[in-house]
């Protein structure tokens, strides 16, 4: 990986900072989960942090996002506060979903982020419709719809990509091929050689990318964004990566071969960026350690604050089932 000529030190550090926030928040969530102090499950994006980081870095302020399970960096990249993420995981009344939904199911349309539902693929047509609406309103919005390798097998994936293709809706369908859908390896998920081949069948452009190289991915996405913003059409962007933890923290992922995991450990997106920054003399190791420590301090403060905030009042149970006015 090379820091391209078109990235400043500040930009590169911002990418690292986003990934560090996600990694350190998730490490905290894992500890809390094993202490039994988190409701429901914990689903992590270890190893996939570059994808949300690179795509949000290349996006514009009016763009819309439908992040999936392992995309905390989409939220962070759009400015979601670590405090809100802890509120969400702790089910606080102050959180983005106000305790109505938990863990990874959160969003904030003020930042252009749809809150995912559990049904994989179901958010792809939603963000497509959102982009169509904004374009009607005269904005140059494009969409980012994230899905895993497993999610590409769903009917919603097919319907949404074909729908966007036929109607020329500028959405980047970001496939995060992390090689396992829960315990199911990609060899049992699809028969094409590479998921990018699917693009041919939809009559759209397909791009294969390294999902762990945040700098290269950012450049690829920036190019696609520039093209489809002015000449609207969907693109299939397949990012190769590996899910570095279980489906959730309840899952030890013992079905992932140790040698595969070890090979991808060396390709950790945080590690790769750090190595590049140091090698290219954009930053010193001490500087990066200090950044990491500062992130950790912010996370500690956010967690402590969320912990002290109230849970939802049961008397509000029925509030908001319907919109009024």
């Amino acid at each position: 990986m090379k820091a391209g000529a078109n990235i400043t030190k500040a930009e590169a550090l911002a990418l690292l900072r986003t990934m560090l926030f996600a990694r350190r928040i998730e490490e905290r969530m894992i500890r809390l989960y094993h202490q039994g102090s988190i409701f429901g499950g914990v689903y992590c994006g270890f190893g996939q942090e570059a994808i949300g980081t690179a795509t949000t870095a290349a996006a514009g302020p009016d763009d819309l996002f439908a992040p999936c399970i392992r995309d905390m960096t989409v939220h962070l990249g759009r400015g979601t506060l670590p405090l809100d993420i802890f509120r969400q995981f702790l089910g606080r009344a102050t959180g983005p979903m106000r305790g109505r939904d938990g863990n990874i199911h959160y969003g904030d349309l003020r930042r252009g982020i749809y809150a995912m539902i559990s049904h994989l693929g179901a958010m792809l047509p939603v963000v497509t419709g959102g982009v169509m609406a904004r374009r009607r309103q005269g904005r140059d919005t494009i969409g980012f719809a994230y899905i895993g390798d497993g999610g590409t097998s769903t009917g919603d994936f097919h319907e949404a990509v074909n729908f966007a293709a036929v109607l020329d809706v500028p959405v980047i369908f970001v496939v995060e091929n992390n090689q396992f859908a829960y315990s199911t390896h990609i060899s049992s998920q699809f028969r094409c050689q590479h998921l990018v081949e699917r693009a041919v069948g939809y009559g759209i452009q397909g791009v294969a990318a390294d999902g762990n190289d945040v700098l290269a991915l950012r450049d690829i996405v920036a190019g696609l964004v520039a093209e489809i913003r002015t000449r609207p059409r969907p693109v299939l962007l397949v990012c190769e990566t590996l899910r570095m933890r279980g489906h959730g923290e309840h899952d030890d992922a013992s079905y992932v071969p140790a040698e595969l995991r070890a090979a991808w450990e060396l390709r950790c997106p945080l590690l790769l960026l750090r190595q590049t920054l140091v090698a290219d003399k954009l930053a010193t190791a001490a500087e990066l350690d200090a950044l990491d420590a500062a992130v950790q301090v912010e996370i500690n403060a956010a967690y402590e604050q969320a912990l002290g905030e109230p849970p939802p009042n049961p008397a509000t149970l029925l509030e908001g089932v319907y919109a009024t006015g």
Partner: protein
Amino acid sequence: MPPAETTFLEAIRQALQRLLREHPDVVLFGQDIGAFGGAFKVTAGLQQEFGADRVFDTPISESAIFGAALGMATMGLRPVVEVQFVDFAMTAVHHLLNNAGTLHYRTGVAAPLVVRAPCGGGFAGGPFHSEELEALFCHMPGLKVVYPAFPADARALMLGAALDPNPVIFLENKYLYRHVKEWLPAVWGPAPLGSARVCRPGRDAVVLTYGAMVHESLRAAERVHSEDGGEVMVLDLRTLKPLDTDAICAAVAATNRVLIVHESWRTGGFGAEIAAVVAERTFHLLDAPVRRLTAPDCPVPFAPELEKAYRPNADKIHEALVEVLEY
């Protein structure tokens, strides 16, 4: 041209036309609804009048249609989408139940969208073009369910549904499209959702019903009257969710005998919900057990002889009414 009565179908078309005229945030899309005007011609002429930007076709994609409608609704549009037959909505029902129905509760973001769904049988449509699925939609939190029986109501409720800030399932019984006509008022506006209407007064019994069965019930009530002078009230529920329970209770209080009629299946059908409301709130007013007349728990059959045996009609309703009145 001399003024003519307006069909149920034309009434809905007029409502859609007015929505497109007066509300720039309204868009219509679905399969074959553009230049072709839809499988039943409800949207005939609308793409020609308002352009392919506002009224457009999509691939066969119930999931993408419902999902995209939800996305548009979150961005300030008011999409009114057509699913060609309600039967086909089942391939995408997770978008209604899980996506649209939960959105406001989860996120505080409103989803003002309408799913227009032609439904119902009586014309040899067979198992997959005749279904009545209102009970399923009514079971889902966050949705509203409208089921008009008359052209004037359909027109006004379509405006009300499209201007409501929630996802609304608008059920259009296909039998009504061309069989039911009436004079429509020149001045009209959106009707509130959740209001039933007594469409025939009476004091001896009440039929609680909706959709095509309102008209069958009116015929049965007329026959009761002509044969033995009995006065049977018919209450057209018009909206199933929210349900006008006060109107139901008032009707029971005025008649003390209840027959519930619907075209859909019996077990878990919407009649069971109505019967429960009657039992919970007006048990002390009843002079006879609550009676349900529904389709049997059987797929909708194709052959006309079988479908006639399957579907409630005025004769069957009359028979049930006589039993209720004689109890």
